[in-house]
Each structure stands twice: as structure tokens, then as C-alpha cells.
């Protein structure tokens, strides 16, 4: 035997796989890890990423069963050998856990509303009954698994933890502590999910259970502000109270903040509520060398951060820390760039319609909507030239945002090719462009230009951004964050300049125009009335209780509590929450149905 043969034979022993199922489990783990990273990148949220990484860690425990692994992974978990778990029973436990977590969140939000003076005792009874029912379902599901041999830790019975949480709502307990008590109720259900996952010999099932655990954690109220902003309350009072509670929390934080030495007080005040996980990163951003001037600014920055819009959050921070006498560097160039970009976007939109009509005509179809303007549009060509000059001037005044400009610039360069495609009716030597192809290409230009607007807008005064109609151009989620941030900027500006509500009112009117195409607030409210929440109800809530107290405490200039939290803002908040919940529900359903 040659040395080549010997080497090959010897090394091949290391590549032998004794367990054919190991590859399936390993691939499942790869998918879970990759999914975790996609989530983390897309959402920028620590909680979900942590949950997904926990999936990976625990699934890894099912992949390689060694003494070292067992010691590492079982330090704070049930030492549970893989015994096999009935998937239906495990998924029933997962569903029951989510249901219980949601009920607990609803109950906790309702107690918060009552504490803030806007809740209803009758609603609380309903919530408690729903929690009791969910708890009964969970007990049944966990008992079934325990009977089947899954070792579920039972150190603190869930009903006892629930009793403790409920007893904390009788007054005298800080809201953060109440939230922590409610969060503690789901500790054992969460551990049961982990234990079931570890007992499962199916890594995909284990991954599902642990993802559910992560989602349940988000819904449980462990992150108070996240719950307030992202989890829909059962009704208007709860939603409003959640916002008020978030504002309260921010006020406490603001009061505690007087410099680096006081920062620990923040952390102490927030510790245990889970809110620190959400609030602290945003607060750190705001506080980094800046002095927050207004709690609503913190809330808005937090909301912007939650929405994944760091630029907006940064803009809030920058705005708060900026002296009104010192306009930001490059503001004039930024304003000019915004103006020209918006101009180009409008003309791109017009030319897009003309191009589609042109293509329709080439195909023998009547142009939709009649005459649509010239194609190609010479005004667009001129506007693009002006835009390039504005972009150059902006780049000269700012070291930031060059990527967005470069992308948009490259896209604009492609406009000539796109026009040729439309004119020739040819996408390639033999391919005709579809209407959808062309529409997508124009949309891509528009989207890249929106990024330029956003980048430039962070250099602008808030009111100027609103006046520019920025919010109407942004994708939904970003627009929500922008609205919140801009309102906060307005408030901060009003506080600084003593201009009262006029500034905010003007900004809000611009928002209404941008959002609903009408300056008529009454008409806008009628628009709100088309779906929940009704504006009257929101306004009634906002003009009572804690919101009014806070408004009046600010010196009377904000006598109209609508200045504190705008109806449109609340509407958007609730939309955002609905969207977030829908996303969570979809993720959960697909996770549970995947197999």
C-alpha cells in the first residue's frame, strides 16, 4: 500500500458518519442559525435574536450529546435526556403558552390603564377570566406532556405566580414591579417549552418550541415598553394607557437623569421590568453627550429605534442636543437636496405613468386614465441635472450618507437605458418588456431616491421635513417612526423656543395633508372613523386622566391634550402594533405549520 493510499484510508476514518440522522439535525440547526441572523439583521431587535440564538444553542445540545455539552447546557435547565415528544402535544403546549402570554399582557395593560386613571374595572374582570381560561389550557397541555414522561420543572406553580402578580396591582406598587410580577408568571411556561424542546429528539420541533418561547417572551410584558408599543391592547383605553405608561416611564427616567453619575439610577429603576432591554439602547443613543429635554422625545426616539429607523432616532437625538441658535452644518445643502429629490421623484412618477401608457399603446391597449404627459419627460431630464448639482453640494458639506447618494446616482444613470427600453419596446434582443418590468424599474428609482430624502432629512429641522411632505414618501413603518420623531422634535422645539402649540399644530396640519391629502382636520377625523380607533374616542381619552394632567403640568400651553399625543400618531401607533402582531402571528403560524 502506498503512502497515498494509507493517508487516504486513515483520514477517511475521520469523515465517517455513524448517525445518518445527524445530517438532518445539523441542517436544521444551520437553518435556525441563519434565520436568527436574518431576523437580527432585518429587525435589529435584540430580543428575537436572543431567542433564536437560544434555539441554536439548545438544538446544538440535541446534536452532540457529550458530557461536556450536558454540563454546559444544563446548568440552569432541566437535565432532560431526549425521550421523544409527541409533536401534537408539544405544539399544544406552545399554543397554550402563547395564549397565556397574550392574556397576561392584556391583563397587565388593563391594570396599567386603571392605574393611569383611564381603565375600566369591568374590562379587568374580563381579562382576568381570559387569563384563567388560558392558564387552564396551559395546565392541561403541560400535564399531558408530564404524563408522557417529559420532566417539567414545577418549582413555582403558575397559579401562585399569577396570584402574586395580581396582588401587586392593588396600589402602592411601582408599575415596573407590576410588570415584572406579570412577567414572572410566564417563567415556568417558558422553561417548560425549553424542557420540552430539550426532550424532543426532533430538532426542528425543538426549534419551533424555542422560537415560540421567544415570541411568548415578547408578548408576556417582560419588555414593558415593547409591549406598550408593539402589542395591541384589547381596546382604546388600554392602548392609550400603554402610551401613557410608556410616557410615565420615560418621565421617571428623565427625572432620574442628571449626568453620568445618575445613569445607574436609570438602570436600577428599569431593572426587572425588562424595559431596560428595549429602552436602554435608545436612551444611550439619546444621552450620548446630549441632554434629553423632554420625555416624549425619549419615547419617540424609542419608538423610532423600535421601528428600526436608527437615522430617525439619531435625528431626534441630534435635534434635542442642538441649540436653536446653531443650525446644523449642511442644513441648507440638505434642504436643497430634499427639494430637488422630491422634484425628481414627482417627475419620475409622472414619466412612469407615461411610459406604462406608451407600452400599453404599443401593445394595442388604450392608455389607462387617458393622457399622461410626455415620454420621455424633458422636465425630468432637467430636474435630474439639478439634482446632481444638489447632491454634489450635499456631499461637499457632509461626510455621511454617501452610500445612499451613490446608489441613487447609479440608479438615475440607468434612466437613459430604461427610457430606451420603453422607446424600443425591447428588453433584450428578443424580449419585450412587460408593463410590470418597467413599473418595477421606475419604482426602484423612486425607492432609492426616498433613501436620499431620508438621509438628507436627518440634517434638517423637523418642521422643514414635515413641510417638505417627507412622511408621505416613506414606507409605512418608517413613516410611523418619522411622524413620532417629528412630533417630538416639534415638542422639543416648542419647549426651547416657547412658541407653544402653534409650531406643533402647523406640523400636524402638514402631516394631515401629507397623510390624507386634506388640510381639513374634520375630514381627516372622518377618515379615522372608517376604522378603529375612532378619533372621538381617542380624543376623549387623551383629554382626560393622566394625559391632561401631564399636558397641564407642562405649563398650560398644552391645554389641548391633542398636542401631547396626536390622534394621527395614535392611529399610526395602533396600525404599527397591528402590523407587528400580524407579523408575529404569521411567523408563529408558519413555524407551527412548517412541519
Amino acid at each position, binding site marked *: 500500500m502506498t503512502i497515498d493510499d494509507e493517508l487516504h484510508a486513515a483520514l477517511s476514518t*475521520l469523515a465517517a458518519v455513524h448517525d445518518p440522522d445527524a445530517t438532518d439535525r445539523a441542517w436544521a440547526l444551520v437553518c435556525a442559525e441563519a434565520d436568527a441572523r436574518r431576523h437580527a439583521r432585518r429587525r435589529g431587535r435584540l430580543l428575537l435574536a436572543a431567542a433564536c440564538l437560544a434555539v441554536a444553542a439548545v438544538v446544538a445540545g440535541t*446534536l452532540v450529546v457529550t458530557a461536556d455539552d450536558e454540563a454546559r447546557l444544563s446548568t440552569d435547565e432541566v437535565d432532560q435526556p431526549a425521550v421523544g415528544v409527541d409533536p401534537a402535544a408539544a405544539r399544544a403546549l406552545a399554543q397554550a403558552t402563547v395564549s397565556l402570554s397574550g392574556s397576561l399582557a392584556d391583563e397587565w395593560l388593563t391594570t396599567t390603564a386603571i392605574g393611569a386613571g383611564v381603565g375600566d374595572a369591568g374590562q379587568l374582570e374580563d381579562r382576568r377570566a381570559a387569563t384563567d381560561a388560558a392558564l387552564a389550557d396551559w395546565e392541561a397541555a403541560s400535564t399531558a406532556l408530564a404524563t408522557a414522561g417529559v420532566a417539567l420543572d414545577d418549582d413555582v406553580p403558575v397559579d401562585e405566580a399569577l396570584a402574586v402578580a395580581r396582588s401587586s396591582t392593588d396600589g402602592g406598587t411601582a408599575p415596573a414591579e407590576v410588570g415584572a410580577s406579570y412577567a414572572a408568571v410566564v417563567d415556568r411556561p417558558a422553561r417548560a417549552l425549553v424542557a420540552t424542546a430539550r426532550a424532543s429528539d426532533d430538532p426542528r420541533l425543538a426549534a419551533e418550541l424555542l422560537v415560540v418561547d421567544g415570541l411568548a417572551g415578547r408578548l408576556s410584558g417582560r419588555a414593558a415598553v415593547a409591549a406598550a408599543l408593539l402589542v395591541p391592547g384589547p381596546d382604546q383605553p388600554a392602548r392609550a394607557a400603554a402610551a401613557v405608561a410608556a410616557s410615565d416611564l420615560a418621565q421617571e427616567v428623565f427625572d432620574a437623569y442628571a449626568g453620568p453619575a445618575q445613569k445607574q439610577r436609570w438602570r436600577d429603576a428599569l431593572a426587572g421590568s425588562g424595559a431596560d432591554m428595549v429602552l436602554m439602547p435608545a436612551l444611550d443613543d439619546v444621552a450620548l453627550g446630549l441632554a434629553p429635554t423632554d420625555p416624549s422625545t425619549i419615547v419617540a426616539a424609542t419608538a423610532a429605534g423600535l421601528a428600526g429607523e436608527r437615522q430617525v432616532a439619531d435625528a431626534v437625538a441630534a435635534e434635542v442636543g442642538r441649540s436653536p441658535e446653531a443650525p446644523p452644518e449642511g442644513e441648507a445643502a440638505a434642504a436643497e437636496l430634499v427639494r430637488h429629490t422630491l422634484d425628481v421623484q414627482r417627475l419620475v412618477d409622472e414619466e412612469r405613468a407615461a411610459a406604462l401608457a406608451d407600452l400599453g399603446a404599443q401593445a394595442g391597449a388604450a392608455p389607462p386614465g387617458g393622457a399622461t404627459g410626455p415620454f420621455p419627460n424633458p422636465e425630468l431630464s432637467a430636474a435630474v441635472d439639478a439634482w446632481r448639482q444638489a447632491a454634489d453640494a450635499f456631499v461637499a458639506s457632509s461626510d455621511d450618507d454617501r452610500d445612499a447618494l451613490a446608489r441613487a446616482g447609479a440608479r438615475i444613470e440607468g434612466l437613459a437605458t430604461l427610457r430606451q427600453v420603453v422607446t424600443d419596446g425591447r428588453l433584450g434582443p428578443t424580449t419585450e418588456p412587460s408593463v410590470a418590468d418597467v413599473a418595477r424599474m421606475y419604482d426602484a428609482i423612486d425607492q432609492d431616491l426616498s433613501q436620499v430624502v431620508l438621509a438628507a432629512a436627518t440634517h434638517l429641522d423637523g418642521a422643514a421635513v414635515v413641510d417638505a411632505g417627507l412622511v408621505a414618501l416613506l414606507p409605512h413603518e418608517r413613516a410611523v417612526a418619522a411622524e413620532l420623531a417629528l412630533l417630538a422634535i416639534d415638542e422639543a422645539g416648542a419647549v426651547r423656543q416657547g412658541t407653544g402649540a402653534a409650531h406643533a399644530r402647523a406640523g400636524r396640519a402638514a402631516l394631515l395633508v401629507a397623510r390624507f391629502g386634506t388640510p381639513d382636520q374634520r375630514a381627516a377625523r372622518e377618515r379615522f372613523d372608517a376604522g378603529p380607533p375612532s378619533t372621538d374616542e381617542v380624543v376623549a381619552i387623551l383629554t382626560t386622566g393622566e394625559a391632561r394632567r401631564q399636558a397641564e403640568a407642562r405649563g398650560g400651553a398644552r391645554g389641548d391634550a391633542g398636542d401631547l399625543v396626536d390622534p394621527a400618531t395614535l392611529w399610526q401607533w395602533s396600525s404599527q402594533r397591528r402590523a407587528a402582531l400580524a407579523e408575529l402571528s404569521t411567523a408563529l403560524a408558519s413555524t407551527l405549520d412548517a412541519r
Partner: protein
Amino acid sequence: MGSTSATDLLAATDPAAAVEACFRRDRAALLGLARVLGGTRPDDAEEVVQEATVRTLVAWERSGRTDDPGPYLRTAVVNLRRDGWRRRARRGTTERLADGPDGTDLADDLEADERRRRLVDAVRALPERQREVVALRYLLECSTGEAASTLGIAEGTVKAHLHRALDSLGIALEDLR
């Protein structure tokens, strides 16, 4: 090598399918590569291969590629293994002899063939670059060109490392006779 064929890779219509097919085809060999290069516990090798595959999957999905990620994955394993060595060196952790796949003791597996075991040990005692070249050549059956591409070095350098490694291993084998 695994049961996934090149046909599966050719048939891959999305990045994840391409990476999965490659992973199923090459996993055993990649685990062996990680074990030869790292010489630590089998779960370390699992972690290295998993991390390399995750990075490959993310990269493939981000770029929309559907071609065979085998070379990329191989390079990722080699690079991660090097990183792992450096981390362990800083911690001062003592490596222990290789275990067999799936947590079994390699000594048990190789009891009937002490010569193979000694040869594996000799490979693992080689300098890092020689060990990489030998593993790629004799475990993954790479050509010198493929090994050079994986390691980011010239083909001539691969041949030189391989020559020196075989000299050393020949001496070790002589001692066994």
C-alpha cells in the same frame, strides 16, 4: 462523501437548496477536515462546520447565487479552524487527542488499526499549512489547484508543502514498520 450528487446541485433553483445539497454531500468530509485541522473534540468540529455553513448560506442568499458553494464552504472551514486555533492558543487550552465521529472515542474505532491511528496523529502533528494541504488532498480529494484556491496560496506552494508533509509522514511510517 455524502449521497447528494452533482445533479442535485445543478438542479438547485434557489440559494438555500444549493447550500443544502452541498452540505449534505460534503458534511462528512468537512467534519473530517475540521477534525484533522483542529484536533479537538467532535463537537468543536460540528460547530466549525455549522458556522461555516451558516455563513455560506447567508452569503448565498444575500447574493442570490445557486452555484455549488463547495469551494466557499471548504475555505470557510479552513479559516474558521485557524481562528479557533488562535483563540485556544490565547486561552492556553490543551488540545486532546481526536475523538471519533458522533462522540465515540476514536481510539475504540481504530483499535484494530493502530497504524492508521498513528498516521492520523502524525498528520495532526504536522505544521499548520502542511496539515491543511494534506487534509485537502487526501480527505477532500482536492487537486493541487483546488487546494491552492481554498488556501489562497500558489499552486507551487501547495506542492512544496505537500512534498515536505509527505517526507515527514514517510519518516513517521517508517518508524511504524
